[in-house]
């Protein structure tokens, strides 16, 4: 079965720096790879999606890369702010199975 690995240790960075989070997966390459943000006590919020034939996607301060050879996605937040502190989840969607498979998430802490 598909396994998704995200760094379980919290990532601590200073405000203004770039945060980089990693998502590694095994087995099949998904049709879509996505990143979600989850705050305590809330449901995940969709951030960005990248397709298997795309290398990079950007949205404001967010950037996602997708390397199907390495089976890895990197999620970058530039000019990070304390308000970016949250848990970030990687999720894969495989066509035909109609469901998302999630990683356990990485907690990001941005200090002022």
């Amino acid at each position, binding site marked *: 079965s598909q396994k*998704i690995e995200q760094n379980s240790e919290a990532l601590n960075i200073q405000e203004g720096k770039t945060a980089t989070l990693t998502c590694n997966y095994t087995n099949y390459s998904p049709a879509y790879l996505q990143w*979600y943000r989850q705050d305590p006590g*809330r449901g995940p919020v*969709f951030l960005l999606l990248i397709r298997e034939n795309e290398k990079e996607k950007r949205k404001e301060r967010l950037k996602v890369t997708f390397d199907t050879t390495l089976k890895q996605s990197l999620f970058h937040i530039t000019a990070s702010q304390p308000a970016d502190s949250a848990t970030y989840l990687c999720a894969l969607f495989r066509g035909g199975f*109609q*469901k*998302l498979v999630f990683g356990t998430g990485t907690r990001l802490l941005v200090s002022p």
Partner: protein
Amino acid sequence: GAGVSQSPSNKVTEKGKDVELRCDPISGHTALYWYRQSLGQGLEFLIYFQGNSAPDKSGLPSDRFSAERTGGSVSTLTIQRTQQEDSAVYLCASSLWDRLYEQYFGPGTRLTVT
């Protein structure tokens, strides 16, 4: 417009009791999903509805779990004879039929079985 809503937000129940969790998806979203998130765990897929039918029930942990959807809208997840291991946050998500990969989540129901 309104997002996905879930009720109750919190539910404490005694072991052995039945519980019902409700999900109201975004208007116009024909696909609806239930997930479970246990402490320190990732989201675990439970069941998926397209309209009122559930083509994939593969994630339901046991026959104590069931779900239904009526009118292509509201869905109810029922857990019978609850056990302590059922304690978790139950999340509902919805999506458009042609964008199943882009799911919008509700705030979840925190279930505690004592």
